[in-house]
């Protein structure tokens, strides 16, 4: 399956990436599994994606890392929000 992954703010800077389009193995079915897979790209990735305040969204909704991911989904990782 194909998904899009976006990174914002501190997380974007840490992994030096704004967006990825990934072809995933069909047995990679949760956000947590995706984080582990991305963590294999290097220490910066592993550290950024294991940050205790990391927030994840699937299709623009904040979710727990146990959330499932499906073909065509848009997953995003970012720190706590500071708008207004």
């Amino acid at each position, binding site marked *: 399956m194909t998904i899009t992954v976006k990174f914002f703010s501190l997380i974007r800077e840490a992994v030096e990436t704004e967006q990825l389009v990934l072809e995933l193995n069909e047995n990679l079915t949760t956000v947590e599994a995706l984080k582990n897979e991305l963590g294999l790209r290097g220490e910066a990735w592993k550290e950024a994606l294991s940050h205790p305040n990391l927030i994840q969204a699937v299709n*623009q909704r904040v979710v727990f890392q146990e959330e499932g991911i499906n073909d065509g989904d848009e997953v995003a990782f970012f720190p706590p*929000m*500071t708008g*207004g």
Partner: protein
Amino acid sequence: MLVRVTDEAIDPGELATRFYSRHPDAAVATFAGFVRDFNDEGHVDSLYLECYVEMATRILNDLGNTAAQRFGLRAWQIVHRHGEMETEDPIVFVATSADHRGEAFAACEFVMDTLKTDAPFWKREHSGDQGQWVTVKAVDKDRRERWSTEGLDQ
């Protein structure tokens, strides 16, 4: 347009005037937020506000609809800027209209307190050649939290 997320300059005065003319209801509250020129460590020269535009638009739409239902609003509008800004530039504009001032004020405050922690924007303040991401303040968390219990019977 109820929600607008834009990287272009916004004019709260013009937005308020247009909202008043379109919604001449009994009570209209408006709020405008501007880039401040200071933080806890000193002077701030400029602000970069990063945004996940598609998600921010969705979250602000949900937030406006929730406020309308919770406070019985007749109309509402949320406009949020992102991108590079100078101090004193307007960042955000919120307008709420209702039959009574209590609901209009409360809804406006509810929207602002909630969007600060729930809408995907991230502030990076610049001072000289130094830049620093802004972290969530305890007061913002507290203000967000109080709405989870306050006003439920309105």
